[in-house]
């Protein structure tokens, strides 16, 4: 335990901690903060979000036909409010636009009318006009569930779609903007985590090889067992990083105020994502977290292998480049985002993880066996 503690302490040197913080700050500033600051991103997404939140408060987790009627009535009330507003605007009345129907059918080719339209919607940002638009979209989605199944799908995919419609999972008051926002955020957070792991693992073996400490380590009682203990060190350090990064991320994510969507099925008609499994948004979040941990563990095995074979830091960086491309691109797209999507094979994720973990373990095991008999 003391050895593990000492080795972990060596990895978290002041310089490395500073570098990790710098990289984290940069990635948050460049990629992640935007998704926090601008969620929902503009209008009518903000209005969709507000309408969906109100639906959740008014109707609970799903909307039955009676509640749908109520939803439509609220929309009619909003139309009446919009009409009242239009009547109060002299320019609109003068232009002959004093009902919402007239407003929505305005000839926007007409420069004068287009200017008036733009003033209400984009200059004065009158909420009611945006809300009606958002409610229209929700009503359209709800009234046409067949669109849920409009892609050319395989027999299994069709069967899954039918199963979801029958079970009522599609009626969940969920929204794609929450799902998309989470997926984008998680991709960047995963990339940041993997980048952190690469940085922290780089000196794992190289440092002691380069400064000849290895000679003292391998002639001590612990001897070459230290090679495997260093892997444990790498795993511990990486788990600390993953946990700390995720904890910070979810702390920040609280600000997006999406917790009310946690118990809802992600297979909603209001979401563009369909899963092979009956998952709630919270379960999906747990699944992504689990996948980040698993990919992190695989990265530790590969990163440790690189650190053990690379003669210097430059070579190590060079070997990390293709790994980073693979992991940040394909890895996060298929193994962190879009998990269990119906448009990919249902076994893709478990099989990919099994292969990745087995191969990376074999790679390290091969290196470990060589190290045991290597001339130093």
């Amino acid at each position: 335990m003391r050895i593990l503690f000492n080795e972990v302490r060596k990895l978290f040197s002041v310089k490395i901690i500073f570098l990790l913080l710098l990289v984290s700050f940069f990635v948050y500033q460049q990629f992640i903060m935007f998704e926090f600051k601008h969620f929902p991103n503009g209008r009518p997404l903000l209005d969709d979000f507000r309408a969906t939140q109100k639906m959740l408060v008014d109707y609970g987790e799903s909307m039955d036909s009676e509640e749908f009627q109520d939803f439509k009535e609220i929309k009619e009330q909003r139309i009446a409010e919009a009409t009242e507003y239009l009547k109060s605007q002299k320019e609109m009345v003068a232009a002959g636009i004093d009902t919402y129907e007239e407003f929505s059918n305005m000839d926007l080719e007409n420069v004068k009318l287009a200017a008036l339209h733009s003033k209400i919607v984009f200059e004065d940002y009158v909420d009611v006009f945006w809300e009606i638009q958002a409610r229209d979209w929700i009503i359209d989605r709800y009234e046409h569930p067949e669109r849920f199944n409009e892609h050319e799908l395989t027999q299994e995919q069709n069967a899954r779609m039918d199963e979801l419609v029958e079970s009522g999972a599609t009626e969940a008051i969920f929204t794609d903007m929450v799902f998309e926002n989470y997926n984008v955020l998680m991709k960047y957070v995963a990339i940041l985590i993997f980048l952190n792991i690469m940085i922290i693992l780089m000196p794992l073996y190289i440092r002691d090889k380069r400064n000849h400490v290895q000679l003292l380590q391998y002639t001590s009682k612990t001897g070459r067992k230290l090679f495997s203990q260093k892997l444990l060190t790498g795993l511990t350090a990486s788990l600390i990083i993953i946990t700390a990064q995720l904890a910070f991320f979810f702390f920040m994510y609280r600000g997006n105020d999406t917790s009310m969507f946690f118990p809802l099925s992600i297979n909603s008609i209001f979401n563009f994502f369909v899963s092979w499994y009956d998952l709630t948004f919270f379960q999906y979040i747990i699944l992504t977290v689990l996948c980040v941990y698993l990919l992190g563990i695989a990265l530790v095995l590969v990163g440790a292998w690189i650190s053990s074979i690379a003669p210097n830091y430059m070579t190590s960086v060079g070997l990390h480049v293709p790994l980073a491309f693979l992991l940040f691109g394909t890895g996060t797209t298929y193994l962190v985002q879009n998990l269990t999507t119906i448009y990919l094979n249902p076994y893709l994720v478990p099989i990919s993880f099994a292969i990745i973990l087995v191969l990376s373990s074999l790679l390290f095991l091969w290196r470990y066996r060589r190290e045991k008999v290597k001339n130093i």
Partner: protein
Amino acid sequence: MLIVEDVTKNFGQFHALKNINLEFHNGVYGLLAPNGAGKTTLIKMLTTLLFPTRGSIRYDGEDIIKMDERYREMIGYLPQEFGYYKNYSPTSYLLYLAALKGIHRKTAITRVEELLKTVALDHVANKKMKKFSGGMIQRVGIAQAMLNDPKILILDEPTAGLDPKERVRFRNLLTNLARDRIVILSTHIVSDVESIANEIIMIKNQEVLYKDTVSNICRKIDGLVYETEVSYEQTEQFRTTYLSLSEKQENGSMYMRFLTEDTAKPEWKSVHPNLEDVFLYIYQDGVRSDDQTA
């Protein structure tokens, strides 16, 4: 007892050591050979960093490779290139190594304090090593080798970087330690081992040439070493005729110590050979080629 039996070490086609047979009991053993002769290879095999191509090394009858950590916990090793972390203090670094050596933390803390006093580094015990001189670093290396109170202490070029005072202090320390343990000291500096080694091991052409006491080894060239005065003009001629062992200018001429198997001339004064004379005699090919290169 540590026994090296018929040990050969090859690196691919290159033969580093051939059929080495050695026996070590408690005492100081000086492993003496020029650089590149295979000293470090032998030492690395004694510390399990290298594995013999043929033969075996046994401690009390058991193969050291099979003994694994039971053997390593008995050895103390100072490599030729002593590695350390610049940002660590001697105390924190020795405690780090103590953990690897399986020494209990409380015991280690006391031991580290003692050792730092022994190597006269107690006043900088908690200072970062990045500001240390070569001699100070080497003393940290000596301290770490003794951390586990080893039964076998193996030191590869331990006096590199030490000043004369530190060398004397170190030699005295080794003499004390060697009473109840094996101390193997590899060096190419003859004075490091001449006064303290119970036995000297000399390696030439990848094989053990001598393993004997200093006096017995010196006896090999008894009656062949002389001293004489030579005029400056004759110096070059003298050097090419005889093996010059040491030279100094004195009273307007050159005072030369040399070795020859020729019949002695009246002006030559026969002297007792020392270990350095033997060293230069044995490795004269290397010495001469070094001179020519220089």
